[in-house]
């Protein structure tokens, strides 16, 4: 727990310095006034929190400051931290439900290149280390060498993989994998899907079909849809969440590439606007660069000194 906190803190160091770190510098020896709030607005927008969510954040900080009769600039930091934690924690998400029948299915979806396949490698490792039997379904039969890529991740995480050839029908691979998961008494089936832009109706239909077919293979399966979002994505993430949710639902989000300088503020925008929980964050390209997302810890790490 402690080491994971340290790693998170370190990885988010750059984020921290530029977001809350920046805010704490701005608020020092200042009074709460419009100029100060303008500067904070800038910092939030530059973190990809988005115009609408930023405005709402600022408004509620303003309101709270008034209610509690706070005038000191530094109080803004406390209020913001509070607000952000509340927004991000609004919908806490258990990863699994106690009475889910086995195997549980995680359908991993998202736009192109966000890190779906890599994240599956990380998840497979994590859950098999937790003692679960994991199987991967290689349902990206479209992109060049996608099957080779996920096969390498399956080897790295030492889990079984069900695959077909390039160009095969992804739904039929999903069906076979679901059957295999049942036959081999797996606990978890991770389905790697091809990247697709949410604007492409036919590709979104294909996802729905994959979900239907899995349901046919395992009639009472609990199929979770997990949406992968690239941490450097701007406001388009909101459309992504909306439209993927419409198509196959969204039980949780995994935000990747937070080891860069992007602040992932879009997480706040998405949580604020759509109330979808963030399950994990990705912090690199190796197998253990995955962290369970904990809103309080995250806000703490963002706001911690030094």
């Amino acid at each position, binding site marked *: 727990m402690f080491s994971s906190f340290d790693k998170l803190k370190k990885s988010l160091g750059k984020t921290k310095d530029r977001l809350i770190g920046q805010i704490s510098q701005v608020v020092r020896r200042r009074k709460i006034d419009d100029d100060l709030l303008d500067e904070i607005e800038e910092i939030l927008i530059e973190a990809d929190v988005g115009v609408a969510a930023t405005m709402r954040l600022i408004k509620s900080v303003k309101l709270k400051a008034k209610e509690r009769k706070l005038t000191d600039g530094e109080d803004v930091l406390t209020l913001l931290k509070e607000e952000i934690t509340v927004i991000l924690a609004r919908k806490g998400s258990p990863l699994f439900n106690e009475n889910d029948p086995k195997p549980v299915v995680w359908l991993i979806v998202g736009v192109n290149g966000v890190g779906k396949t890599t994240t599956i490698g990380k998840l497979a490792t994590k859950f098999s280390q937790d003692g679960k039997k994991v199987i991967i379904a290689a349902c990206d039969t479209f992109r*060049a060498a996608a099957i080779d890529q996920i096969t390498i991740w399956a080897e790295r995480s030492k889990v079984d993989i069900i695959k077909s050839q390039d160009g095969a029908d992804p739904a039929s691979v999903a069906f076979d994998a679901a059957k295999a998961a049942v036959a081999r008494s797996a606990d978890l089936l991770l389905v790697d899907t091809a990247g697709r832009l949410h604007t492409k109706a036919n590709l979104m239909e294909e996802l729905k079909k994959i979900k239907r077919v899995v349901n046919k293979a395992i009639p009472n399966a609990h199929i979770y849809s997990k949406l992968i979002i690239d941490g450097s994505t*701007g406001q388009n993430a909101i459309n992504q969440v909306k439209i993927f949710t419409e198509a196959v639902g969204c039980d949780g989000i995994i935000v990747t590439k937070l080891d860069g300088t*992007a602040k992932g503020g879009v997480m706040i925008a998405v949580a604020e606007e759509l109330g979808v929980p963030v399950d994990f964050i990705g912090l690199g390209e190796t197998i253990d660069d995955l962290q369970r997302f904990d809103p309080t810890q995250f806000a703490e790490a963002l706001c911690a000194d030094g």
Partner: protein
Amino acid sequence: MFSNLTDKLETVFKKLRGAGMLSEKNIKDSMREVRQALLEADVNYKVAKRFVKSVQEKAVGESVLKSIEPGQQVIKIVHDELVSLLGNKAEPIAPIDKSPTVYMVCGLQGSGKTTLCGKLALMHRRKNKKPLLVAADIYRPAAVKQLKVIADSIAVEHFSLEGKKPPEICREAVKYAEKNFIDLVILDTAGRLHIDDELMTELEEIKEQVKPDELLLVADAMTGQDAVKVAEEFHKRLNITGVVLSKMDGDARGGAALSIREVTGCPIKLASIGEKLGDLEPFHPDRMASRILGMGDIVSLVEKAQETIDEGKAIEMQEKLLKAQFNFEDFLEQMNQIKKMGPLDGLLKMIPGVGKALKGVTVDEKNMERMVAIIKSMTIPERRNPGLIDGSRKRRIARGSGNSVQSVNQLLKQFYTMQKMFSNMNKGKFKGLPKGMMPF
């Protein structure tokens, strides 16, 4: 979420016209709307601020205050300024004027580099050049294989070296090219973070060794505020010569383009618009400007329509449309025309205002096929006069086309919605629609 800037500005100026007076404060208000539109499009905060400041000076100085349509005038100034910042005209990629010419492709993880390498190879192979695709990504699982599959699919030669570091691979590739009559060497480097000093140094080494004629940074059109930092860093270390915006086929407004252009001063040369290897276009600053402002890409749509739609039929259709007199026969004809224009999903979104007006009316290819099947099951009189279609006719049509009565109802409803829309358009609500286009 993305409200229409034109509408907003019109609101600002309506208020002011009501007051019977235009003032600098009104300009300021309108600039706030412009700034907001830019931020919603992911233009970097500081870039947006600088931009608005420069536009405001122009707007105050210029004819806006006296203009009869100040909203339009402001949009025009903003739009022109954006276009000029984005580079005025499409700038071409380095020509192949010596053999081998070398293109080096770099960028963040997953931005679309490998795919772009394939697209560039295909583009030049079509011009009878001989490209070589070089696998300089030795890190990502199956990256070498990915490039090989791509190369094979377009019958282009592929180069990789096992157990060697990327700078050496690239150097060897160029040597190989010199000996083997290759015209164009394309280096596919691994994705990396701009703050990863070790890997950024690797790129510097590759550059040093092969002296590329074109050093392209690939940036995802969906990128947020961070685009500035990424581009700045890549440019600082590598002195890039051009930018390619990828995944432009989505609905991201693409403000990153403006940010990148502003901080690097480098031209954006190409737009990647799909996963297929033919999906590559020159970058058009004017279209990008409209897109960033949330005004749709009307130019592309008109161009596409002009390329494919039969002029005479278009005029005839337009007259019918404007009189809201079209029927299902025209509908069928229109579908045929539209089919020729290619994938539908991108098409509709290019029309400003229409996306909103037709919310809930889903448009996709399958749906289109279903509509065609239903119409084909109608008799000619029914097609000409949809009013005829009563309950029993609906059942017959449903059975005949293998659809549910519900689908038939849906189509009829859609048809009437459209009719209504066109009579609105006739009253001037959809000025942007190219002639002869039926936006279902």
